[in-house]
């Protein structure tokens, strides 16, 4: 296993396709967890995350010859497969969080349809951090985003990919990733503000006055 750590991704895939089990196990153990977490944060479902992880590496076994290192990294290739499988799962299953592509729906609740984080007259209260429930709130807020916003948050903020890496996974322009992330984060700030307890909201409002 250790001896494989110095090999290029292209070489690893070649070995894997030639039947080198060590190369396959190395690749799997290197990337299974990020792929699993991507699928989990996109679907909100551990069973789906496991299925997607398995399908991603089955695709690598069967069609790994399609990986072209000139087009991007192996992780980008695997995340791209994972993204496609998550979308397929949503098309097939009803229990996943909706994946809305190119939708005008920005995920706002009706009660706040007119609120825009960029509007100068409204300033939302800062998200109250440091409590255990905050993480659960953030997870729910991410899952409530429309799919094309959710995936940029998951890739850029939770997987810590650069805009360029995320653009390769999503097969779109870097500017698209940046603008979607900006919008997604504005929505998240609004959602988290909405989820805050009335006490903390009034306290924050009192502080602003």
């Amino acid at each position, binding site marked *: 296993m250790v001896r494989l750590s110095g090999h290029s991704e292209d070489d690893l895939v070649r070995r894997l396709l030639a039947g080198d089990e060590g190369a*396959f196990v190395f690749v799997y153990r290197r990337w299974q967890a990020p792929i699993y977490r991507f699928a989990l944060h996109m679907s909100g479902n551990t069973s789906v*995350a*496991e299925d997607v992880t398995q399908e991603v590496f089955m695709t690598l076994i069967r069609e790994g010859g399609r990986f072209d290192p000139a087009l991007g990294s192996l992780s980008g290739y695997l995340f791209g497969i994972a993204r496609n499988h998550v979308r397929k799962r949503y098309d097939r299953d009803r229990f996943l969080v909706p994946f809305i592509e190119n939708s005008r729906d920005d995920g706002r609740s009706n009660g706040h349809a007119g609120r825009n984080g960029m509007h100068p007259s409204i300033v939302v209260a800062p998200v109250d*951090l440091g409590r255990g429930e905050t993480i659960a709130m953030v997870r729910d807020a991410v899952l409530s985003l429309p799919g094309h916003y959710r995936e940029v948050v998951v890739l850029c903020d939770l997987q810590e990919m*650069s805009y360029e890496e995320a653009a390769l996974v999503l097969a779109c322009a870097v500017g698209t990733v940046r603008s979607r992330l900006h919008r997604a984060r504005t929505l*998240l700030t609004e959602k988290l503000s909405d989820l805050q307890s009335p006490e903390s909201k009034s306290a924050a409002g009192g502080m602003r006055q």
Partner: protein
Amino acid sequence: MNCVQFQEIVHDLARDAGLDQSARRDALAHADSCPRCDELLAEAQSLTTALRSLAAKDGTLGASERVEVALIGAFRQQSGPAVHSNRPWQWGLASVAGLAALVLLSVLVLRHPVVSPPTPIQILLMQTPNMRQLL
């Protein structure tokens, strides 16, 4: 930098990504002079912290052992005889060899036609040339 320009880059600033030093310095200077933008920056930074907390909390999650076992099984199956039989050059080689064997066999048959042994009637006719006249 004005408020609109600041709002366009506030999340890049909070994520510390996608901004060069000059733009970052200008944005921070604007936030220092504008309470509203300063508050927007605080929100964006809080969100960054919250998302990093979620990423850190889930950072140890991964697929179960069952998935690895299933995949290694599938890999072994795929790498076995089925994989080798799927190699196109091997199929091509086998086809050419079969065709060559067929051609060779045809040539041999044409050069040395198979002669079936004579029947008893034919033997009798050969031994007694006048038999035909008798018949």
